[in-house]
């Protein structure tokens, strides 16, 4: 923009606005030829010169303006004090009733036993708590606690002589009279379900009915498979640490090639004797899958058949289940041969309660990892412990 031209334009514009004609304003201007058409354009804007608003228009706007101001200025409608009191009372009563009912339901349900009206509430509350728990080791502790509760409930049913359908978990033992026991409760197992002696010391899920005479009529018995997902923290020859859970590795354990500390893995394990978590397979998690290829341990591909009457607990991971079904039935026997302490099949008397944990130390002191709550067995014969 030419500053001289702009200044001359402004000067002429002021003259025109003060009432001079176009020719008078341009008189003596050196840029007159350029300024004239511009000033004509400005003068043409006078065609758009608006008139003042009609009085009626202004009056209408004024009335609307002041009415709105009065509305804004008026205080908000106030609920009388007795109305507020009534509302507050109703709200308070509602809150108190809700809290009391929740507390009462929670307390009552926590004391309930299988077959009681509020027992499903108790189970759902427990599952909700477990679902909110992060980390395999933490979930293992939760499951351990719940298993303890289930066995306590069954014990109470037995002491009361009630007959109810029950599901619980515990270490399988056998007393001097040859009676099978789980969580230290006597089991009456049909001939078709008789477990292999090699299962002594294994952690199993039991489903059946409490009998007034103080034992459990077993309808299914399943080896508990633990699915553990986590990062490898340590790798020693036969002892790995995954997500703070110690795992015993045997020659039969399927281990993906190329695993190293820091990698995320998915482990299927069984608990054998209260202090040993035996890994059946350790696979790289999906995020690591491309880095390693599965390597099968030949020892697991033997022709052993399933011990009669025992089924591995199913999981929701179909491919994993298929693999586990093959290996789990073999592991108890193999495990007895490779127990960390070098002993053969553990004696029942030497088997502490499965829920008991010890702080510090190795895998044997780590609480069990269980299936996720939604990994309830699909078969009616193999209900989970939760």
């Amino acid at each position, binding site marked *: 923009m030419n500053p001289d031209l702009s200044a001359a334009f402004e000067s002429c514009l002021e003259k025109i606005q003060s009432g001079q004609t176009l020719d008078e304003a341009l008189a003596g201007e050196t840029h007159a030829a350029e300024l004239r058409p511009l000033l004509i354009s400005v003068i043409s804007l006078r065609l758009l010169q608006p008139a*003042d608003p009609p009085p009626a*228009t202004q009056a209408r*706007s004024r009335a609307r303006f002041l009415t709105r101001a009065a509305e804004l200025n008026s205080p908000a409608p106030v609920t009388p004090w007795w109305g507020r009191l009534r509302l507050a009372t109703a709200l308070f009563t509602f809150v108190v009733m809700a809290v009391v009912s929740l507390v009462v339901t929670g307390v009552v349900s926590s004391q309930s036993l299988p077959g009681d009206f509020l027992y499903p509430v108790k189970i759902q509350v427990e599952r909700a708590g477990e679902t909110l728990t992060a980390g395999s080791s933490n979930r293992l502790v939760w499951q351990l606690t719940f298993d303890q509760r289930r066995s306590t409930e069954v014990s109470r049913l037995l002491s009361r002589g009630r007959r109810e359908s029950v599901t619980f978990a515990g270490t399988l033992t056998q007393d001097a009279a040859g009676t099978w026991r789980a969580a230290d409760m006597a089991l009456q197992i049909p001939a078709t379900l008789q477990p292999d002696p090699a299962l002594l010391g294994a952690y199993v899920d039991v489903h059946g009915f409490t009998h007034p005479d103080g034992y459990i009529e077993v309808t299914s018995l399943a080896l508990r498979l633990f699915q553990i997902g986590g990062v490898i923290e340590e790798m020693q020859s036969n002892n790995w640490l995954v997500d703070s859970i110690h795992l015993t590795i045997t020659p039969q354990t399927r281990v993906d090639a190329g695993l190293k500390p820091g990698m995320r893995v998915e482990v299927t394990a069984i608990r054998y004797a209260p202090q040993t978590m035996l890994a059946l397979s350790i696979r790289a998690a999906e995020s690591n899958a491309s880095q390693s290829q599965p390597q099968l341990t030949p020892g697991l591909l033997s022709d052993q058949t399933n011990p009669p009457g025992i089924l591995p607990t199913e999981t929701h991971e179909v491919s994993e289940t298929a693999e586990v079904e093959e290996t789990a039935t073999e592991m108890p026997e193999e495990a007895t041969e490779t127990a960390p302490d070098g002993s053969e099949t553990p004696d029942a008397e030497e088997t502490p309660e499965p829920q008991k944990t010890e702080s510090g130390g190795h895998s044997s002191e780590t609480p069990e990892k269980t299936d996720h709550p939604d990994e309830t067995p699909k078969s009616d014969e193999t209900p989970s412990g939760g």
Partner: protein
Amino acid sequence: MDDTTLLTQAQRLDPHALAEIHDRHFPAIYRYILFRVGDVQVSEDLSSDVFLALLDALKGGKLRSGNIRAWLLATANHRVQDEYRKRYHRPLENLEDHDQLPDGHDLEAAADHAHNRRRVRSAVRKLNEDQQHVLALRFSQELNLEETARALGRTVSAVKVIQFRAVQALRKLLLEESEPQ
């Protein structure tokens, strides 16, 4: 009563102060909007809306100090732009159709006058927003450069540049409209 005192009272929604503000500024706002849109009914509605917006600003504490007139003119500019956008998306009516013929017995002269006015308005509407705003402030309100700069929140130099380019563009548009189709 000066603007500062008026504003202080208006912030309390004092009806006398509010009435004073309305009476003092409504004609200017109405003229500004009429210059931009050329329709008396739309001008009345938009002007009234501008003052209702002022109440909201006062109530909400958004107008604590400053030039009430500048605030009203800026708000009027926004309302006009909104109106243009509305019409762009929903072109139900043509503003020129509402041009009022001047009183008088010379209908031919009146028709020429109306035609020229439509031509100028059509050209003005083709300018950019800033240019339209400056021309409206300068020629509907007769604001001088300093007042226009204050209303725009810009420097006098910036206003001069905008104004000069607006007039150049207007000249070009008017010439184009004069050429036979």
